[in-house]
């Protein structure tokens, strides 16, 4: 389904980044990195008052030739970025939204782990499995 899933910290460094075709890893890293500008733009565009009750899902950030990039920002300003193959038309906005929600739940679980140091890279098997399931599913 997704070809790349990334979790970016508030300070814009990657907490977790995983992509399926390993040979284009660098490209995906760049894609995710550049998408952060769009995320910032979207978040700041919303204005102060709306920030509190805003929706976390940002929608399609931008499409490229081969991929679509979706974004999601938690209340703690942690960004989730998902890169999806453009050819996959089965994925609608709603599916993406639910995938993000799943991702967010899993991320929350990681945060709840008392042994996890917030701000470190995520090394969690449960989280890995969940991401894998989202990437493999429907491929």
């Amino acid at each position, binding site marked *: 389904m997704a070809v790349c899933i990334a979790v970016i910290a508030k300070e814009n460094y990657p907490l977790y980044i995983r992509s399926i075709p390993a040979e284009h890893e660098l490209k995906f890293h760049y894609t995710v*990195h550049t998408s952060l500008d769009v995320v910032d733009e979207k978040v700041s565009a919303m204005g102060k008052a709306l920030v509190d009750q805003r929706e976390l899902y940002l929608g399609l950030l931008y499409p490229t030739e081969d991929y679509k990039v979706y974004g999601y920002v938690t209340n703690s300003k942690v960004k989730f970025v998902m890169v999806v193959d453009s050819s996959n038309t089965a994925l609608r906005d709603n599916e993406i939204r639910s995938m993000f929600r799943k991702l967010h739940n899993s991320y929350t679980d990681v945060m709840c782990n008392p042994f996890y140091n917030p701000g470190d890279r995520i090394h969690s098997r449960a989280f890995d499995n969940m991401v894998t399931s989202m990437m493999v599913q429907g491929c």
Partner: protein
Amino acid sequence: MAQCVQSVQELIPDSFVPCVAALCSEEAERLTRRNHLSFAELLKPFSRLTSEVHMRDPNNQLHIIKNLKISVSNIVTQPPLPGAIRKHLSDVVSISQPAEGLVANVITAGDYDLNISDQSIKASVPWYSNWKDTLMELKESTLYSATTPWFESYRESFLQSMPASDHEFLNHYLACMLVASSSEPEPVEQFLKLSQEQHRIQHSSDYSYPKWFIPNTLKYYVLLHDVSAGDEQRADSLYEEMKQRYGTQGCYLLKINSRTSNRSSDEQIPDPWSQYLQKNSIQNQESYEDGPYTITSNKNADSSMLSLDGLDNEVKDGLPNNFKAHPLQLDQSSDPASNFDGADHIKSMLSIHETKKMNTGILHGACLTLTDHDRIRQFIQEFTFRGLLPHIEKTIRQLNDQLISRKGLSRSLFSATKKWFSGSKVPEKSINELKNTSGLLYPPEAPELQIRKMADLCFLVQHYDLAYSCYHTAKKDFLNDQAMLYAAGALEMAAVSAFLQPGAPRPYPAHYMDTAIQTYRDICKNMVLAERCVLLSAEILKSQSKYSEAAALLIRLTSEKKHALRCYCQAMQVYKGKGWSLAEDHINFTIGRQSFTLRQLDNAVSAFKHILINESKQPAAQQGAFLREYLYVYKNVSQLSPDGPLPQLPLPYINSLATRVFFGHDRRPAEGEKQAATHISLDQEYDSESSQQWRELEEQVVAVINKGIIPSNFHPTQYCLNSYTDNSRFPLAVVEEPITVEVAFRNPLKVPLLLTELSLLWKFQPKGSNSKDNEETKELVTCGHEMIGTEVISEFLINSEEIKVARLKLFPHHIGELHILGVVYNLGTIQSSVGLDGIGCIPGCHTGKHPSNIMSVRGRQDLEIQGPRLNNTKEEKTSIKYGPDRRLDPIITEEMPLLEVFFINFPTGLLCGEIRKAYVEFVNVSKCPLTGLKVVSKRPEFFTFGGNTEALTPLSPSASENCSAYKTVVADSTSGATALTSSASSVDFGLGSQPEVIHVPLPDSVLLPGASVQLPMWLRGPDEEGVHEINFLFYYESIKKQSNICHRVLRHTAVICTSRSLNVRATVCRSNTLEGEEGRGGNMLVFVDVENINTSEAGVKEFHIVQVSSNSKHWKLQKSVNLSENKDSKLASREKGKLCFKAVRCKNFEAAAQSSEKYTFVDIIFGNEQIISSASPCADFFFRSLSSELKKTHAQYNSLATEKQSSDDAVRLIKKCSEVDLNIVVLWKAYVVEDNKQLILEGQHHVILRTLGREAFSFSQKQEPPEMGLLKFTRPENTMVPTKPTVEQLSSLIKTSLQYPESFNHPFHQKSLCLVPVTLLLSNCSQTDVDVIIDLRHKATSPDALEVHGSFTWLGQTQYKLQLKSQEIYSLQLKACFVHAGVYNLGTPRVFAKLSDQVTLFETSQQSSMPALIIISNV
């Protein structure tokens, strides 16, 4: 500021101004020089007109010129050298640079701080134009704060320094000022001369430079008058004369120097020159320096011309090179020579600062008053209004007329004729040809250039409409003629004038500019012009807010590679340290590659280094590629400077802290039966516990050597230094003994690394040469091999992500201080180097050293070890300070003896208590004699070298095979149970106050160099079963006393595995019988239980007790008691035997007083061989175990003893009665089957009997760890309870025995009372007098006692009070009366004892429990 001060509408007209030449007479020049100014310089600040000027164009319409500026310059007949221009430009830029570090060019864009002052780019000046686009883009941003003051000055200087060229006329001289002084003798003559000179310069073929606009140049005659010195009237009259000659509009009288310079200091006059002159100082200076070439002096004109010719050739020759080196060449990197030489640059910087200094010191215009300033201004105005502009107006009109007349000829015809002759060929010209030549070249006065001339004139006087139409026409013509250079010039100016047209009737034709730039660059290869074009165009585009186009233009002008590199560098700033590691690697890699192609090798190396040293997440193949590329780049760097210092390599990692240093030879492998001392080696892991043990051992032996005191400067010998050892002192190494350094490498990459020719890097300062310079010379020199030998490891492979240690050796051959600095090696990979894409493999890039195709570079890595953190003083605790670590700085000292120890027949497994004989060989392998050999061990009871009473007969080990370890004597079999007595003292067996330190009995106590000694050594298996590690520390000294090293040590750890053999328990009790008591003292019974507890049934078949020996100071075994049936006392597995012996006091008890410390040895033999227990090794081990036992009990009861101290003597005396010091040695033989061979093993167990009645063991039972008690918070009250001796102790004070007939027949029917005489023997066991009370009364309190004893009574006195002397035996006659037959217990007398000199009565019944039965039978 990136924001320019001038708007583009001001900038362009100021860049293109009418040029006027100035030709001065010497006298005139001298006048202006008084102000430290040349004539041209004098005019410079006033060269802008303050008022509007009017002019009529060819159509007779009024044209207004605003802010006109003219440029007056001295005639220079040489075109400026491109090199000089370049230098000047770079100087201008470097002057404008903010001081290093003061103002960082940091742009805050969003979250990032970008530092745009890239050092590599700062180094080469022309690339500063690269920055412009960035700056222009940033202008929009409100956050930018970057400053580029250099850019404007660069641009200004660049435009001003444009050399005049043939295809355009903008900077050709329009007019010439001829300047003479009024003080000259013949000013009119002078004017004539000057005029001729000008004519000659312009029209003779000798000068191709400067360029003149039109053939008949306007000549303007200026008479300079020095007001302060000259005659004013003369000047006025001269001026009048001039007016008549040249007309009022062609001449001028300029009065200057109204005051003398020395007066001026107190008056502050503004110095308008300073801002101009600083900038141009270089140019001016040069022009002065090049004096011969300038035609400021007429006198030596001829000679100067000659020299000029000569030099001209040179200059021309030099030209191609200089052009080649022009910074604006497209691909600068293709020619390495074009790189700015750093040194050159610095030099120019210096010169700039010098001139700056110089200029600031000089006050310009010191002789000029403000009135003079006004006069000059007036003069310029007059010149422009009256002279220059009419001249221009006239010229324009002339040119216009010419053009119109030519137009009349019909343009089509003109072009048709052209086509007729040459035009047909034009289209056939291939593009390549066009590119090679710049197309057609016109002669200077060609008719085609007239229109261009007119356009330029119009442009100069700001008539842009006309200029544009002229340029446009010219452009068409030139294009038709394929005169590309001319066309480009026309296009450029057309675009500029289109832009500058007032009201802007047409849009700015940017494509004109683009074409012009392309043509300049690609076809004409004239980068200077292209750059000018770009600068103008960029400026125009900028004013139209077309920033990206402007940027694109600038970028296109510069090297794309450089630009790319810069972009990557900035991207690096964004990604750095943010965790985007893959991207970071990629950027670093690209930076590295780009830097390499741009020959910025150092940058390339550092970029590649970054990829490699960070923990890379790249796959192995990628890492391999990175590494290969890195090595390749590195190789190129090192080839550039082969003599430079070795570069620091980043790979592999060195864990400096894990570096270990070992002093001494490697451990020799065991040779056959010979087993070398384990000593210490790098293979051993550090163990703090064991090192502490060794340290204690060494302290012990040193304390013994120094009579019990450890010297304050004592430090334990450290042969192996690591991070745990104390490295605060310089370690000592001995000359001619190797130093091994173990370096821990780690390969962080997934590709293997191959290190070749790996060796240590060191610095050596031989002793005696303290001077620094001497030390320096010894560093790193290869000829130092006679000082220090260095081992080289030819190949050392570290696999991927492996941690591997390399051991490198040094062999010091001299005394001095050695500093190990690091390692030096060739770094390479094992994969063959494939040509790197993009770079390609330069053939022959390998050095001859390594013939294979392994790409490797030579470099070094330093070993820097940080010492431990200090934490002693308060200051150290509050701050972070680290102590020194000197493990790599050994001091090489003089020769020392070196001992090697070998063990022969050393067992690995023993039975507990087994005695084995082994041999130990001492070899002195050094060139120094060795003495004072001692060995120290925590377990002295484990081994012995034999007592010194024996004659040392070092039997060879082979001869002693299968022989008993003991010294035996064949005994006559009849003597069976009898005892054989001998005596010995513990001193004889080398046991001093410190039993741990054992002197090794070397013959002559010296071991000469190369000598070896074999000594027998007996071992006894420790009493506890299990594996024992026994540490031996051999201590020895040199014959010569040395300051640095007093002694050396050698370590050996023996590992012995013991298995259970026998368990011996013994008790001793007082024999009750007093019979056979010869003399006094008493006798005792000793019961010895021997149990075979060996569990390995296969190995040991049976044990034989062959002998039991006793030794004591006071007691001896007399005979075996029950030997009737089991004579040879065999013990099979798990069998137990009991032996009983009678012990008596030694006869010579008094004679051998206690002070003599003599022990009496008694052997009771069960076999037919007597083992002499008083000789080695039996006695040795006995004494050793005794002393260790003593120590143990001391330690155990130490706390009790202190308490006992307070108790009174009485108790001690009482206790002493029950004490005994009898030691039993059980000697045994074990029959062992091993490999179908029967072996006989021998051994001995010791039991030390201290107390009567208490059971003693051959080895102390393991004590149960005390159970964890409740934690008490109250201090236990130390109430001094008067210690009372126990009942047991008291009971042994007096020994009693009853003597009576066992059975007594009495006819009760005859006599009802039976009287039996009973003798009560009382024996005082103590050493003092004892009061004894004997009470015969039955105890009436106990009813059952009545029952038993009620049937008999004692007759006579029922209570006795006696005093017994020490050891006295007293017999008391008693009578017992019986009334019935039966069995009675006579043991009812109660005996109370009391020390006679004591008040307190420790009364207790003596031996109350002992039954003494008597049978009374009735007959």
